[in-house]
């Protein structure tokens, strides 16, 4: 339909006024709350050129923070991707008692405060937690060590891959998969050659979301980490630590780095989502 002129054909003054009014309110709000502060942070960070930023981010603490962040985030993403694809396949392609329950459970992490996540993990995997003694006896260390941080990060980003893949799976339907099976493909072949390519973009989208979320987790990680500089300090914890030591430059540098990563992931994920939509 070529009509774009809307309902009221006549442009009355009243209507333009309300249109500009709404636009002003919306954009004004976004400016004050979002755009201006973000611009400010970039300005502050780059105020004295990129030199100080580079120095801050290449210090040994920063570099190890980046390293720890990457290890933790990637591990969490890998775990959640496997889980995510499996859960999506189950929820969409299979019927079983408790299916709706599973659907609801997957969303739980969204409603849990990050601090509570940390507490919950400590209560189970900490020294005095449920499995604490078993863990100690086997010489493992989960809380205050990397595994605990991986768990915390995996917790908070749990639903992301499922929720990206499931709708696409549902939308494309299983007819192609059925066709493949009638032609003799077994389950793994069907998945690898039929299902997977069709969800590839959606999966990529979910992974990017998941990665961005995992790189940026703070609250849950701050509880379960030992805050040991160089060992269990992620970039977000690094920012916190630097601020507490009045090292604004380093804090701002890391903040800007994470902000850029966040924006980049938004751009990429948006492109992936459009591509996934147009393919299905």
């Amino acid at each position, binding site marked *: 339909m070529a009509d774009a002129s809307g309902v009221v054909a006549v442009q009355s003054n009243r209507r333009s006024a309300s249109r500009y009014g*709404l636009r002003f309110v919306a954009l004004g709000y976004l400016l004050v709350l979002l755009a201006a*502060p973000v611009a400010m942070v970039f300005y502050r960070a780059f105020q004295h050129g990129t030199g100080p930023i580079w120095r801050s981010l290449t210090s040994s603490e920063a570099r190890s923070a980046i390293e720890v962040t990457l290890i933790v985030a990637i591990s969490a993403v890998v775990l959640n991707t496997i889980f995510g694809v499996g859960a999506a396949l189950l929820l969409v392609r299979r019927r079983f008692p408790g299916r709706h329950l599973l659907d609801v459970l997957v969303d739980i992490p969204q409603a849990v405060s990050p601090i509570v996540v940390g507490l919950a993990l400590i209560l189970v995997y900490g020294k005095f937690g449920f499995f604490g003694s078993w863990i100690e006896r086997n010489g493992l260390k989960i809380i205050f060590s990397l595994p605990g941080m991986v768990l915390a990060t995996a917790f908070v980003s749990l639903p992301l891959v499922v929720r990206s893949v499931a709708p696409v799976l549902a939308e494309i339907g*299983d007819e192609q998969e059925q066709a493949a099976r009638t032609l003799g493909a077994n389950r793994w072949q069907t998945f690898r050659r039929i299902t997977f390519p069709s969800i590839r973009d959606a999966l990529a989208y979910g992974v990017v979301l998941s990665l961005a979320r995992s790189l940026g987790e703070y609250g849950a990680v701050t509880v379960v980490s030992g805050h040991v500089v160089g060992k269990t300090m992620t970039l977000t914890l690094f920012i916190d630590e630097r601020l507490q030591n009045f090292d604004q430059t380093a804090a701002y540098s890391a903040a800007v780095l994470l902000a850029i990563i966040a924006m980049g992931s938004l751009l990429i994920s948006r492109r992936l989502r459009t591509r996934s939509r147009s393919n299905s």
Partner: protein
Amino acid sequence: MSPLPSSALAVDASVPTAARPPGVRPPAWWRARSGGSAGGTSLGLGLVTLYLSFLVLIPLGAVIWKSQSNGWSEGWHQVTSPQAWAALKLTLTISVGVALFNLVMGTVIAWVLVRDDFPGKSVVELLIDLPFALPTIVAGVVLLSLYGPRSPAHINIAYTRTAITVALLFVTLPFVVRTVQPVLIELDRDMEAAAASLGASPFLIARRIILPNLVPAMLTGTGLAFARAIGEFGSISLLSGNLPFRTEVSAVNIYNQIQSDNPVGAAAQSTVLLFIAFVVLFALDRLKRWGGRRG
């Protein structure tokens, strides 16, 4: 980038299932051949359940269990202790206010994004999702730079309740926008044209035709925003100074309880937060179903 929960089962009806007459169960060999094998499902289900249990369910269960490990009354006592109670009241009041404010602003923004056009709209679209993507502590730094002690605009809200409000407005901004926007896009424009031909003014059309169709999405977004707000930590702790009884929210108090080795207190408050969040989301689920019945 809005990982808002949309039930995987929402598109239930469109998922084709092997046609079979009601009440007749296909023999095992047929099931195995068609790939709907019970074995594969069970294994997958088992693994998924295991993962979910050890990562999410057992830990959350532990929180609830811990809060009553010295008895329910002790748990309750912890929650109602003056400082914790003050933090809870503060958290809930500000969260409700913020959720409602962003309900209005979110709807306005969604409207402007869908029905209006201006240069730079695509930038705005992208910007909206930023609070979703930004680490909470970075959000805190961002707000601090403009509205903190060294603000060039000489607006310093650090150590005030306003700081909490601003931080929460920031992190909950995209929720209502992203739930309302798709509904607005899908809205049948002919409905508005029909209402106009029947004599309704643009204002009346907005109030009686458009808005009622947006209400479910608005409620969902607001509920999600509220659930997020009551648990927020990173951005608030940076801006508000966490002054007990003045600018300390529940999440911060819980953190302090953990640090000062009071797990029961921490668990009890956590249980309260969990309970509130689940009640809100459960109510939303009910609401969506009720709305769905009306088409």
